[in-house]
Every structure is written in structure tokens, then in C-alpha cells.
């Protein structure tokens, strides 16, 4: 009896890795396919991002910068959608801007999708500036006049023919800039736009970057920080619209639990084997 028992654990400890692949695939697949969700606790960093936007009076302008591409889409797109829902719900005006050319279609797709949900009108409630090369130079020149860099919007429509842009010229007319970051543009927003123009900033970053950006929040250079899919899920909770962040977070959590269980099983197998070998 006992012998069988031990060999079971030992076998488990040496299980073919394809079972592990299968389990990881399943724990990620199931929550997505069946829309399973996860209870999420809101962290202060995300709450403070939410509060910053929530405090804005109706009609204020929020600029969202799409600084990512397809590779970071699973983490940052849910963030974009949650923030857009918050803005449209509060009747804030949204300007999208892109610093990664490959992010252009991704950002626009998210914007149009959420705008449709809320019945918002292009050019009146929201608009997309598109992409201009030049990173920091573009950021700095928008400090004096947006039109000095963007003559038209993403489709080439002159800015002045969009009703909402009439009184928007530079950062003075923008209440908050939200940077969704997969690279170094977030540092530029802080080091150039916040430092030089005292512009209020919120950053949404990939999970890997979160620890590196945290000091900005501590130093008060940014008003809020949304980190990874987890941050997106927290924001979804705050705007009361659980969506992909929650689902993705369920996948994440189950995958993490699965890996930790693997580690534990592996160790049980290892100790059983060692005990048996000592016994012999």
C-alpha cells in the first residue's frame, strides 16, 4: 500500500511536461472562453488615477496617449477601454494621440468601439490626432500649440473644423494626460511634459514596467498609476463595468496558482524520492 502511494507522488514529480503545457493552456483558455471573472481589490495607485479623472468637471478634456502596439495589447487595451468608459460616462471630451505608429489602428479600434457604446459623436465628444514622428519634439511643441504639429486629425480633417477642438490649443486646455505605455514614452511624458508644463499625468503601464515607474507616483510626478492587467481590472471595477481585465485577470490568477501547485507537487515528489532512497 505504502509503496504504491510513494510511487504515485514520485511519478507526479516526474510527470511529462506536456501535461503541464496542457494545464497551463486550459487555465488560460477556460476563463477567457467562458467569461469567468475574478474579485479584484482596488489599490491606492489605481484609485488615485480614478479619482483624478472623477474630479474633473463635465466637458474637461482628457488626452490619452497610445504608446504601445500589438505585443502589449492584452494588458493595455482593457485599460484604454475602462478609462474611455469612465470619461464618456462623465461627459468628458477625449483626444487620442499615438507615439507608436503600429499602435494607431489598435487605439482607434478601442476608441470607436467604446464611443459607439455611449453614442458619442466624433469631433464633438472625441477625436483622434493620429501619429507624428518626433517623440519628445512633438510633446514639447504641443505645449505651445497642438496645431503646430497636428495640422489635421487621423483622417486629415483640419483641427479647426472639429467643433471640440475650437478652444483647445495646448496643455493649458487639457485637464489630464493619460499615457498608456509599453516603452520609454512614459518617462518622456514625466520628464518633459510634467516637468516643463506642470501637466497632470496618469500612467498606465505593462506589468513588467510597473515597479520602475512607481517612484514617479511617490514623488507626485504622476497622479495615478495603473499597472498591467491587474490595474486594468481594478479600474474596471471602479467604473463598474467588469470586462476583459477581469477575465484576463482570472486567467492570470489561475495560471499563477497552477504554476505554484506544480512547484509544490514537484517538491513533494522530490522529497518522497529522497526519503525512499535514504530508506533503501
Amino acid at each position, binding site marked *: 500500500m505504502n509503496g504504491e502511494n510513494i510511487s504515485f507522488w514520485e511519478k507526479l514529480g516526474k510527470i511529462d*511536461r506536456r501535461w503541464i503545457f496542457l494545464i497551463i493552456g486550459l487555465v488560460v483558455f477556460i476563463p477567457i472562453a467562458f467569461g469567468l471573472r475574478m474579485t479584484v481589490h482596488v489599490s491606492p495607485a489605481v484609485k488615485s488615477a480614478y479619482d483624478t479623472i472623477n474630479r474633473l468637471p463635465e466637458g474637461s478634456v482628457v488626452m490619452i496617449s497610445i504608446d504601445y502596439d500589438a505585443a502589449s495589447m492584452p494588458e493595455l487595451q482593457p485599460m484604454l477601454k475602462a478609462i474611455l468608459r469612465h470619461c464618456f460616462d462623465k461627459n468628458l471630451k477625449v483626444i487620442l494621440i499615438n507615439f507608436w505608429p503600429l499602435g494607431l489602428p489598435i487605439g482607434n479600434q478601442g476608441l470607436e468601439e467604446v464611443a459607439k457604446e455611449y453614442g458619442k459623436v466624433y469631433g464633438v465628444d472625441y477625436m483622434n490626432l493620429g501619429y507624428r514622428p518626433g517623440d519628445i519634439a512633438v510633446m514639447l511643441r504641443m*505645449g*505651445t500649440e497642438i496645431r503646430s504639429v497636428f495640422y489635421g486629425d487621423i483622417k486629415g480633417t483640419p483641427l479647426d473644423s472639429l467643433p471640440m477642438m475650437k478652444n483647445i490649443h495646448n496643455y*493649458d486646455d487639457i485637464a489630464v494626460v493619460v499615457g498608456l505605455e509599453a516603452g520609454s514614452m512614459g518617462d518622456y511624458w514625466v520628464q518633459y511634459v510634467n516637468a*516643463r*508644463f*506642470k501637466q497632470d499625468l496618469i500612467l498606465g503601464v505593462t506589468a513588467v514596467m510597473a515597479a520602475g515607474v512607481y517612484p514617479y507616483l511617490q514623488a507626485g510626478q504622476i497622479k495615478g498609476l495603473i499597472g498591467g492587467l491587474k490595474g486594468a481590472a481594478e479600474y474596471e471595477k471602479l467604473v463598474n463595468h467588469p470586462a476583459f481585465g477581469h477575465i484576463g485577470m482570472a486567467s492570470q490568477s489561475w495560471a499563477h496558482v497552477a504554476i505554484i501547485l506544480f512547484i509544490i507537487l514537484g517538491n513533494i515528489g522530490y522529497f518522497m524520492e529522497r526519503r525512499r532512497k535514504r530508506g533503501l
Partner: protein
Amino acid sequence: MLILLIIGLLEPPSYVRAYDRPNDGGGAIVIEWESVSDTLLKGYEIFRRKVGEEEFRKVAYVARGRNSFVNSIGIKDGVKYEYAVRSVGIDGSYSDLSIPAPPVVSYPQWFKKNKINTLLAIAIYFFLLVYFTQAAKGRELFIRRIAGLDHLEEAVGRATEMGKPILYVPGLSGLSDIATIASINILSPVAKKAAEYDTPIIVPNRDPIVTMVAQEVVKEAYTEAGRPDAFKRENVFFLSDSQFAYAAGVDGIMVRERPATNLFIGMFYAESLILAETGNMTGAIQIAGTDAVAQLPFFITACDYTIMGEELYAASAYLSRDPKLVGSIKAQDWGKAILMGLAFIGSILSLLNIDVVLKMFATI
């Protein structure tokens, strides 16, 4: 109404000064002023004119809270400029222009004075290196054991016993990464051993220049081993220059050619674990070596031995025992000792409010 107007009148900034930006290639002037404390203040406008011109022209606006600005647009070296600043209120009103700063000229410098510490550090290290490489001539110097390097020969031997090839991945970067050069230095003795044992060595490459260098190095190793005819050029080849296409290709080689020994040495990125896990699946003995801090954890978990960080740069000395190269390791160790000493002294001094050492390591 009148009272409001009087209160609303903004003061111009005082004590405006302008000077050539130091340590640059010219074409930039720094303007500074004393900030105005007024709740109605929105920011400042900066004006410029060439000496001799009548009218000031606006060159920039900065928000309140800052009291300096670098003017680098439209500045010609050797031309005299005058600057003045005025305050702007939140209601759109503005003050008079300040008293202009004395005329200023921008010019390029020939030496970055703020980088003198870097230059000095290079000089000291260079001296150490030259001293120890010369002093080491004809002497046997000690190097501590480096496990990963010790097992290189054993790994080559195992492939020979099993009659299977060796896979050598020289990293995914080019020669601009010094780690790649370190990898080439290790490839040379490994290829030589492989040639002696008559074991094929497969070297897939991602960088065109590295492909060429690797071919030359392997060919040379075969010649040195006295078997130039055994060298097969098609075994050292260019696989793909895209990171993941390269990883897919190397995975394919590992499952089809079944090398008994995989060596991943050089610069690696996220693909490190894809390579190392696939290699582990095929049951190969694996030695990795990289200075990419972010990839070390994955190599450590998936490979049998890992040459970590600086060990990679000690490799060529360790394997060749060439006194000159071993001497350079001595210099590296002296560098570490000096830096540790300075970190100690610097900490003690800085806690006593003396920041000399801290300033020595400034990089501004």
C-alpha cells in the same frame, strides 16, 4: 474695479540673466530669472533680440514654477543676444518686460568639463590594465574556479561519446555588443576541442557580421587542430535576423539534429527560455553564459551550468591561461576593490554630510 486692476498688475521678473550653456557644441543659451510670487501668475514669456535691433521678439513660454529656460532654436554662435522676460497672468494680462540681461554670446566648447571624472576613471583603469598585463608576463597567476567553464570540455566530450553534434549559439546580438566578442573568444577553444574529437559543431547565427566571424574562427580552430579538411562551412550559417524566427529555427535544429550538447553564450533576450527549455526537452547537456541580467534566472533554471555576468568576460583568460589576459582579470579585480572602497568611504562621508565621493560619481 480700479483696485482690482492695481492688484491684478503683474510684476515683471527681476534679476534676469543669460549665459552660454556650458559643455555643449554651441547654439544654446540659458536664461534664468527670479520667480514672481503672485497668485494670478500663469507663466513667463521669454523675449530675445540681437544687439542693435530695436524690437524684442517672443521666443518661448514656460509655465509658472520654473525659472529657467534653454533657448536653442535660432541661435547662431558668435552673435550677441539680449534677453528679457515678462510675466503672464491667468486672465491673459501681462507685465512690462523685465530689465534685459546683459548681452550674451553662444560658442562651442572643446571639452566637456562635467565629464572629467569619466575621463579620469578611464585613465586609471587603463593604467591598471596595462600595468597588470605587462607585469603578468611569464608568470602563472591564480584564477578561482568557474564551474560553467570547467565543464565546457566535459560537455564537448559527452557529445563525442554519444556521436552527436554540438550546438553553439553565439547570442542574438552583433559585434557592437561586447558579450558577442566574449562569446567568439569561447567559440574558438570549443571548436578546437570539437575538431580534435571529430565532433560536428553547428553554429546558427542571427547577425550577418557574426556569421562571418564565426565561420572564420571555426575554420581557424580546425586548422589549428590539424584538421582543416574536416571543417564544414555549411555548419556555420545565417539562420534568420528576426529574434523569434531565429528561436523557431534553433528549436527545429534541436529537435531534429538532437545535439548532445547545447552552448548558449553571448547576448540573449526573451527567447533565452524558449531555447533552454527546448534543449532540456531533448535531453542535451546545456551550458549558458550571458551578461544579460534579465535572462540569467531562466538560464539558471533550465541549464546545467551558467556562466554569469562578469564570468563571461573572464572566460578567454580562464580557458587560455594566457598571462596577458589573466593580468587583465587582476586589473578587473583591482577595479572592483577600488569601487567597493569608494562606496564604503563615500557612504561614511555622505552620512557626515560630506558628498565629495558622491560627486565623483555624478554623471550629469
